[in-house]
């Protein structure tokens, strides 16, 4: 039997093969490389999975928040709007400022403002505002000047180093002549505010060393002068 090739005892051959090759192990450096490959091949953990329920909850939340935001926006306090409120043109501002400064010592200085107003009204064909803007003011004089393309009555008052002019003219040159249309404007040294009433335009121009006080001068004078006009024609407050 020994001379017949292929007549192996499988058990003995297996044992011999195992003894020859069975003890071979992958070297350590190969193990490390393979471990690194396995690590790199691991699928990245899912970052964020959104299920249908979560999606629905998120949608409800978004709709809810949007609704609240919309309601808050809708009910927010809206700053009061100022209808009939316009800006004086820059040319008119320049004219008013120039006359306010230049006419300071011109014209009548009659202390009877009512009589003065009557005379000026007759000359200009409109009602001229000729009341004192306040007890502290001193009347400096009056004149008829040209503002824009209109003749205007100009009454000048002083209070210390502060000056206040009251201009009365026809409202024709203004873009909006509706009753109680309100205009204002300013430059570096002057503050102006006026209104339209019965076809006339009445504009106050204030100046002084402290420009911040000019707004106060204007509003105080407006209060004082408003008594000159019938209450029914004044704007509702």
């Amino acid at each position, binding site marked *: 039997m*020994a001379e017949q090739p*292929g007549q*192996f005892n499988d058990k003995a051959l297996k044992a011999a093969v195992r003894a*020859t090759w069975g003890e071979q192990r*992958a070297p350590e450096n190969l193990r490390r490389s393979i471990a690194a490959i396995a690590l790199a*091949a691991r699928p990245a953990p899912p970052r964020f999975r959104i299920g249908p329920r979560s999606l629905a909850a998120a949608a409800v939340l978004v709709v809810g928040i949007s609704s609240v935001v919309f309601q808050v926006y809708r009910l927010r306090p809206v700053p009061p709007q100022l209808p009939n409120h316009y800006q004086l043109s820059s040319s008119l501002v320049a004219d008013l400022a120039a006359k306010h400064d230049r006419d300071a010592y011109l014209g009548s200085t009659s202390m009877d403002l009512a009589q003065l107003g009557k005379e000026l009204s007759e000359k200009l064909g409109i009602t001229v505002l000729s009341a004192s803007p306040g007890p502290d003011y001193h009347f400096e004089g009056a004149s008829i000047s040209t503002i824009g393309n209109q003749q205007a009555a100009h009454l000048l008052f002083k209070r210390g180093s502060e000056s206040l002019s009251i201009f009365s003219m026809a409202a024709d040159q203004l873009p909006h002549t509706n009753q109680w249309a309100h205009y204002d404007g300013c430059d570096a040294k002057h503050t102006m505010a006026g209104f339209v009433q019965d076809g006339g335009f009445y504009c106050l121009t204030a100046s002084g060393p402290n420009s911040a006080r000019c707004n106060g001068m204007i509003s105080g004078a407006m209060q004082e002068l408003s008594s000159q006009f019938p209450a029914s024609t004044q704007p509702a407050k």
Partner: protein
Amino acid sequence: MKVSAEQFEKLALDQMDMLYRVAHRLAGNAEEAADLVQETYLRAFKSREKFDLKSVGIRPWLVRILHNLHFTRSQRQRRQPMATDASDLDAMPTMQNAAPSIGPADLDHMDQRMAWALNELPGEYQTTLLLWAVEELSYKEIADALEVPVGTVMSRLHRAKQRISQLLQPYFNKGMILE
């Protein structure tokens, strides 16, 4: 049956020694064997989704990848002419892979003779023998791994035994490994 990524990793890494042994049989040297195993794992992890534990076990599947890789590399190398340095030729022994110079009557050295005979077998025979004897794969599993018919596996084993018998003929009269 599909397995999870963690299960696959464990299954695959458990076969590292087996793959290294097979690679060593095919490649013939440790360096190329390590390279083959590394490339095999790269491909295996890349193809993880395709692996089905039920249709084929992890061992035949991995061996198949390794075997295909080796086959492709061998074909590529065969197509490329290789230059051999004169120094390499000088370094080669005159009787490479010669049988161990042990007297026929020396039973104590039979294991060395067997090892020599096994290593003299062609790579495919070595691989088949290894998968059968050491890894204890069935004929069917070996056939799956090497992508050959079962009959080819059986014939390779038979021829491997024949070849070993021929190589060890001078020592057979000692009757150590024969029936």
